């Protein structure tokens, strides 16, 4: 009897392991920092798609981008690299490329024709000296303005503002109605987000590129840029006293409850609205920018593929790159994440109103522009953020700020 059971167990084991031996699924360990509720739901769609394509997804989620990136870098240097690791669509991973520590995915990129459907800005980040070193996952736009319909009603404002002047008029009305006009979290990166919003909407495309891409001293010292800085500082009059140090989602909560009128924040804020069961167009409004030529600032995430010569790993990396950029995966992932797909040739009918608005803008090449960090190095971006945040918080002559910006952006 005992022997029989043993034999049965052994047989079962053999049966279970047999198919695995003949055709092992391509195992991929992926490091990422998508850990919040909505984010995990989003990353699950990637894992499911990869599994459906015959792979085995091993999830290594590490909270906080900075933390996850330093773990990835340490493991790459230490020789225990994951199959893929998340980075932002910025120059963050350029040093790793320089050290020759990444595999490229040229084969997939050329076969699938990435050049045809990826926005120029994204291509310029992932394509280095003709090689494709990362697979883009999503596009976030950091500089949306979100409005609270309830607060607007109380302040007697009918429509969402359509120009910068209307924005200030709305802020004045909100203030007069005793509400917090601008819900803002006074942390460096959030100050920087407001600055990006003003630079793209007041400065426009040319100035934006001259400042970030060319780091042109003449442009930074120009009156146009001075005007951008002054407009940015003017917005500070509309925040409440509790603003310094506030987290972005607490500021979004002020919009949700109708305590505040407007927040300038990335499209990840949509996650908060949907958690609170609010609907775009009904409970809250979204403004991608002012005017028919407003810019769509492109930020987002990519997967990079650490160097390996193991054919199984390389095959897994190629499969990942293909699955991630696939149109169906793209819609499924970005719906959950609150971002928009990296390609505009997808069926967007199922996505929410704001995402559809964003995709429509994204279709116009002249309106695509990179986030500051896609043009400048991480430490330049950090130095710029310090300058901007200081200006937001302190009374500093605008001419000095112009000089400081110039100093922050030098090599």
């Amino acid at each position, binding site marked *: 009897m005992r022997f029989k059971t043993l034999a049965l167990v052994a047989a079962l084991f053999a049966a279970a392991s047999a198919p695995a031996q003949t055709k092992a699924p391509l195992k991929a360990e992926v490091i990422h920092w998508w850990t919040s509720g909505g984010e995990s739901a989003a990353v699950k769609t990637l894992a499911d798609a990869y599994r459906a394509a015959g792979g085995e997804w091993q999830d290594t989620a590490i909270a906080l981008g900075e933390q996850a990136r330093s773990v990835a870098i340490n493991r790459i240097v230490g020789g225990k690299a994951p199959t893929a690791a998340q980075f932002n669509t910025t120059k963050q991973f350029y040093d790793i490329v320089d050290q020759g520590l990444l595999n490229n995915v040229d084969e997939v990129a050329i076969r699938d024709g990435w050049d045809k459907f990826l926005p120029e800005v994204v291509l310029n980040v992932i394509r280095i000296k003709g090689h494709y070193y990362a697979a883009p996952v999503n596009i976030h736009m950091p500089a949306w303005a979100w409005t609270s319909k309830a607060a607007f009603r109380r302040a007697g404002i009918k429509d969402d503002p359509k120009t910068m002047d209307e924005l200030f008029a709305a802020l004045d009305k909100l203030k007069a109605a005793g509400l917090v006009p601008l819900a803002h979290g*006074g942390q460096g990166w959030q100050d920087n987000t407001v600055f990006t919003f003003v630079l793209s909407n007041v400065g426009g495309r040319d100035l934006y590129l001259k400042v970030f891409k060319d780091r042109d001293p003449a442009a930074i010292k120009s009156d146009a840029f001075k005007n951008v800085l002054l407009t940015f500082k003017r917005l500070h009059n509309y925040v*409440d006293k509790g603003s*310094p140090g506030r987290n972005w989602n607490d500021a979004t909560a002020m919009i949700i409850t109708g305590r505040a009128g407007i927040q300038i924040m990335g499209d990840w804020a949509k996650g908060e609205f949907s958690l609170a069961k609010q609907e775009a167009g009904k409970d809250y409004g979204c403004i991608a920018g002012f005017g028919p030529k407003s810019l769509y600032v492109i930020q987002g995430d990519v997967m990079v593929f650490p160097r390996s010569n193991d054919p199984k790993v390389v095959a897994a990396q190629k499969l990942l790159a293909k699955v991630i950029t696939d149109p169906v995966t793209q819609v499924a992932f970005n719906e959950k994440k609150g971002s928009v797909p990296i390609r505009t040739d997808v069926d967007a009918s199922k996505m929410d109103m704001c995402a559809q608005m964003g995709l429509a803008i994204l279709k116009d090449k002249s309106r695509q522009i990179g986030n500051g960090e896609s043009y400048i190095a*991480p430490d330049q971006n950090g130095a710029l953020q*310090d300058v901007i945040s200081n200006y937001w918080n302190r009374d500093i002559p605008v001419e000095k700020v112009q000089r400081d910006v110039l100093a922050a952006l030098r090599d």
Partner: protein
Amino acid sequence: MKALLRRVTPWTALLPLAITVLVGYFGAALWSLFISMTSSRTFPSTNFVGLEQYERLFDNERWQLALHNLAIYGLLFIVACMVIGFLLAVFIDQKVRGEGLLRVAFLYPYAMSFVATGLVWQWVLNPDSGLQNAMQHLGWKDFTFDWIIDQDMAIYTIVIASVWQASGLVMALMLAGLRSIDEEIWKAARLDGVPVWRVYLSIVLPMLGATLATVFVLLSTAVVKAFDVVIAMTQGGPGTASDLPAKFIMDHLFGRANLGLASAGAMVLLLTVLIIVAPLLYARSRRKEART
């Protein structure tokens, strides 16, 4: 043979520690010194650039502010902790009732991590939800205490939280010192009619020299490594108003991928510690020599 073995054994036992100190501490410090003179970014590089990183560092307004804040924070924190800690110890030394309970109460904050301390104080000091709000609701309409969102005062809120956390430890150390003082001295002073406060100030305090030095060194290291309390309370803000060197270094080490500049900052910090602590250690070793 036996004598030799007896002499070698302690050294052998200390060897692992010695290696750890040499490699882990001195080795790491030398490595940082080397990196601080290269143009390292995300990865360590060997491209030697001399003192360029140090020039950039001292050109950097945020670094200057961080050093300035360190001086304010360090001075106030150490002085306040020592004064409050000493007074608490003297108070408990009066053979008060419920001494055990009081000792635990005063020492308890130290059992809390700096992050938790910072968070609690951030809530207390937040003008929208904390103390100010509570006082205004209680009827003091003009009560304002909004240092934490004030550019010029934010650093002092960090001092408050840190002092609250660390004075209990100072008290415990000082109390141990006070208890080690011979009863005879007290009796003699009483016979001579010396007032109690005078005994503490002129006799007991000088006798606590070694304890004071220990407390000073402990508090100094806490100052230099202060990082988590800033992160939890203000994240260096508003703007960069409450920035400290450790936070500057951490920011540049990882998020801003500038190993070279971060290492230069770390070396400056190490140098500062040595300048403060070295004379003290020197004086102590001199005294020890004089005694033997």
